[in-house]
């Protein structure tokens, strides 16, 4: 009787991830194909459109820099929602999602930082300044790495999940700071020109490649995220299977 209830409990726990795996297997190929398509078009557009009269060739950096910067923030938002899922709804996949997103977000943030620096050298004459926007993005990068380190350091996922969820939520204050830093403090950095309430103010010449690249990056993020979540689920299964094997193997010799 009790044995039975245990099995059902376990089953309902795992049902969700199992369904997720099936879904992922169905969706991933399509996502991958779409991503590649959008990247092809986006790259073609970004190298064929005209340069800016002010910034010259360097404006092409924008097509990488801006999507990467957006994605770095969006990825953290996804993590924050997952953290809520862990803490409030205790959804079994939420923790997996947060954990899988961290390295991806760190990569996008890294890209935003590097391309921004590479843009800053010709435009501002320096690789780096400690203004609000740049500093807050740097802090975002540190937070991603810190969360990754914490996740790695704690062996037991059940235990690390809640701690890192709390940290993710605390760190979320940084996102509005990044977004609005250009308006709250005067900085060297460009104010928003695409994502604003009164519509984009940017020349459509640049808007098209930017948009296509942004979509491509977003698709890339989702494909990677789903794949990484799948890996994480598999990883947990391997661990629990190994323990189970261990206990059964140990038991035969234990029972006198």
């Amino acid at each position, binding site marked *: 009787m009790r044995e039975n209830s245990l099995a059902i409990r376990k*089953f309902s726990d*795992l049902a969700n991830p199992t369904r997720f795996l099936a879904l992922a297997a169905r969706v991933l190929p399509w996502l991958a194909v779409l991503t590649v398509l959008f990247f092809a078009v986006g790259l073609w557009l970004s190298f064929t459109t005209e340069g800016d009269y002010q910034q*010259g060739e360097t404006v092409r950096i924008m097509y*990488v820099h801006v999507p990467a910067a957006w994605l770095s923030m969006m990825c953290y938002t996804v993590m924050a929602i997952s953290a809520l899922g862990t803490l409030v709804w205790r959804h079994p996949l939420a923790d997996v999602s947060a954990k899988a997103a961290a390295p*991806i977000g760190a*990569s996008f943030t890294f890209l935003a930082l590097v391309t921004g620096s*590479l*843009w800053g050298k010709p435009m501002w004459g320096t690789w780096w300044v400690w203004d609000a926007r740049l500093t807050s993005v740097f802090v975002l990068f540190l937070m991603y790495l810190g969360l990754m380190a914490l996740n790695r350091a704690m062996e037991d996922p059940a235990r690390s999940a809640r701690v890192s969820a709390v940290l993710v939520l605390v760190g979320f204050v940084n996102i509005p700071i990044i977004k609005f830093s250009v308006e709250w403090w005067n900085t060297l950095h460009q104010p928003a020109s695409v994502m604003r309430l009164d519509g984009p103010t940017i020349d459509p010449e640049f808007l098209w490649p930017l948009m296509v690249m942004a979509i491509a990056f977003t698709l890339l993020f989702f494909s990677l995220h789903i794949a990484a979540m799948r890996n994480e689920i*598999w990883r947990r299964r391997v661990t629990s299977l190994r323990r189970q*094997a261990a206990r059964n193997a140990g038991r035969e010799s234990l029972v006198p």
Partner: protein
Amino acid sequence: MSHAAYVLSSYAVAVATVVGLVLWVVGDGRARQRELKALEAAGIRRRSAEATGGEST
């Protein structure tokens, strides 16, 4: 450095990062699947998997 160099290096960094990320995710997945296969070959299966008649993947 000329401006083109800045543009090219940022694209190069972008490509390198993205390719690295994709390779890591794919490689990680392969490794995990190998481990699962090995465990399965050793005759260890999840209890719930048995109950539901196996995995879909």
